[in-house]
């Protein structure tokens, strides 16, 4: 459940703020969201990563469809990638990296600051 909450919150945050904030700020926001949601490390890692990967990949596709520009192809060539599809994949993968690690760190911080559960009471 927390996976879905973090995934959806990250998705919405990036969609709404992506235009205004550069990626280091997005990293900070995902870090904060993961801290607040407090899912496990692995779940946060994938929730944050997949959210950003999805938004970036779809945004790239949408720009490409709207503009009909051959820029993705040119950039793929410039970066030594074979075929323009790889530049979409690279964008998605980079989105995953940028989303996942802050989410993981946020979750781990929550883990560090979490008060130990009281034990020994019946």
């Amino acid at each position, binding site marked *: 459940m927390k996976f879905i909450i973090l995934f959806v919150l990250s998705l919405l945050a990036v969609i709404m703020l992506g235009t205004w904030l550069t990626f280091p700020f997005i990293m900070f926001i995902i870090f904060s969201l993961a801290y607040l949601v407090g899912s496990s490390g692995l779940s946060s890692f994938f929730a944050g990563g997949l959210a950003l990967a999805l938004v970036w990949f779809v945004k*790239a596709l949408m*720009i490409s469809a709207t503009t009909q520009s051959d820029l993705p192809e040119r950039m793929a060539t410039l970066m030594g990638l074979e075929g323009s599809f790889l530049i979409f994949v690279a964008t998605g993968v980079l989105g995953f990296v940028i989303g996942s*690690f802050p989410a*993981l760190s946020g979750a781990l911080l929550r883990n560090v600051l979490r008060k130990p559960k009281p034990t020994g009471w019946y």
Partner: protein
Amino acid sequence: MKYISFAFFFILTIILGLLLSMQIDKIPPLGKLLDPYHGFWQNAYSEDQQAQDELTISNLKEQVEVVYDEFLIPHIYANNEEDLYKVQGYVTAQHRLWQMDFQTLAAAGRLSEIVGSMALELDRTTRRKGLPFAAEQGISYLEQEDPEIFLYLNAYADGVNEYIDQLAEATLPIEYKILNYKPEPWSPYKSLLLLKYMADMLVGDRDLEYTNLRAMLGKDLFEKLYPLFPEESDPVIESTHLWDFEPIAVEQPEDLQYPSDSILLQALPQPTPGTGSNNWAVSGSKTASGNPILANDPHLSMNLPSLWYAMQLSTPDFSVKGATLPGALGVISGFNENIAWGVTNATRDTRDWYAITFKDSDRSEYLYNDQWVKSIMRVEEIKIKGEPSKMDTVIYTHHGPVVYDQSFGAERKDVNYALKWTAHMPSIEQRTFLMLNKGGDHADYIAALDHYTSPAQNFVFASKSGDIAMKVQGRFPLKWQGQGMFFMDGNDPQMEWAGFVPNEHNAATLNPERGFVSSANQHPVAESYPYFVFDHSYEHYRNRRLNQRLEEMNQITVKDMMGLQFDNYHLLAAEATPLMMTLIASDSVNIRMIDQKYWNELSQWDFYTNPQQSAPTIFHLWWRNLYKSIWGILDEGGVPVVYPNYYQTVQLMSKDAKDSIFDIRATPKRETVVDHLKISYDSMVVQLEKLAKVKGDYTWGTYKNTSVKHLVPAFEAFSYQNIQTGGGAGILNATSERHGASWRMVVEMAEEPIAHGIYPGGQSGNPGSKYYNTFLASWAKGEYVDFRLNKQDSFRNPLFTSTFKSKSN
């Protein structure tokens, strides 16, 4: 444990964030670049998709409207000139900001700041040649001498800066994103730098090579191989022209001493052969409509973003349209309702070198007229990306900067050569163009040209009133016969220029009897001109072909003139091939041994250079090998030299095939030109076979590989190669591999001018835009787009309109 894992991943996250925001070696900051909200994806939008109906900028006096036609050519309608140039700056920056910024960084010797130490030597050369120094001098001169132009240049700069200020991360031109830097504010200084950049692109000298050649060959042979005038001179100003002025006398010193030793210096880069242009105008007596027609096609390096940017600039007083240079005010080659004009490079030796003797190693004093004179020291700090700055001390004498010294280009410590160049002197070329933009008749054209100094140009002119004219305009030093062909003694006052040729003595013609005026970078005048005129690089082929065609043609139409700009006839080949074939066939052994396949192709060649023909490739390779084979002997001294030109080479071959110059001294046999022809033919056969194997065929288009390349050589993905188009260096359609018609314009001065234009690129500088290469395919086929003057409400198919309003209104 949980502390450690948090710390580990938190630090890893921060490192990742940093790494993806940084440029590492040649890898751009990937996080910034691939972010679809801010990175390169945002550059995929074309200008019409980002059109804004209304824009506000500071301190606009009145509202300005900009209407874009279907090719993204902006038509600016302003009510006053200050607003006009402000919006010209803004609109140009919208489409060409990175290019403007990059070209002026190059002109200022600052490329190392963005590409690192690979540009260090280039930056040093630029600074040592004094380009930034000249622009600095120019700006204070301009401020005092021409406040009006200074005001307009500031308005233009304000426009550019308004655009820069509103740029967001997402809308930054893609080159900044890849190379990871930001645009700098524009200033009038940068506009002047751009004109110096043009001067540097177009002006060269061969003083070093000529000095070596004279020492090597002796006076007589040198003069035979490098004559001042060709036998068959066909100059810019018709040979029959009578000079109606009293020339200023220039005394030649009596006891001239020439350097007798060869000089080993690293030669400076020269304008690439093939850099040049055509322009002409035909009078109404030769046209079908009775109106004069003017044509201009400057041949420069074909780059993307394109060197030229097309525009119409209108106020209630005038409307001008044509090619602008991003960074400069007004239109450079174009027309208005009354006149049309165009430019070609008026090559002439305006750069001279002086040997300097310093008193001691600190170089604070140098010898002039046997007196010690104080020098000026200028320390150039060259910032380098990712490395500490390098300092370069350049000494300035009254002649100019000491380019060659112990730390640059010279191996010996006592070698110091200063460069004197008209481009170092303050001038206001910008005024010429603004006056032409508003000009109404021939008198206005002459008045405008009086302000023009460097790089010297042949200005062609045609007016609605029926005049055609040509003037060779620049600041030309007054020289005695032979002055400045070789390195000179900087101590000797007799070696100084005696002043400058007065503007009214510069060669010019108005409505000549032959019914046309033309220029193609050839000799400006015939030998009858009373001043010393010299340059190594004068053209000998395009000019003769052009004049021969113009002479023959009558009832000329605009279409005929377009055809002439795209004329692929190879005059050098037409003159040299039959001679080469006859000479080689004169030896019966040769004719039996040579490869018949290529021989037959050459025999049947019509001397045109269309892209699908193969014979041009055969000729080109044979000729190139032959030329190298004949003149390679001059390289034996191991010092920089320049070979005699093609025209002179053909002359020598035709006059005396057994001339001693053809003897290869290393062999006991006495060779003639036939031996060179045979050797070079055989090498050509090997080259052609290899070419056919590697590229599949040896057609001219494939072999020539015409390419239009992005200004950053590494950005091949933003470039176009193997463009199938004809022509070549020395041909009217002068499209070689990297140089060619960077702008073609034909204008008929009818009641309303009929104009057509094209260039190899597009209006947008953004490689992601559909307007990046709009004109390229049409240009390669010799087609044009309609380039008529438009009234605000006369657009048939406008792309979009933007209204500029003042923020303070």
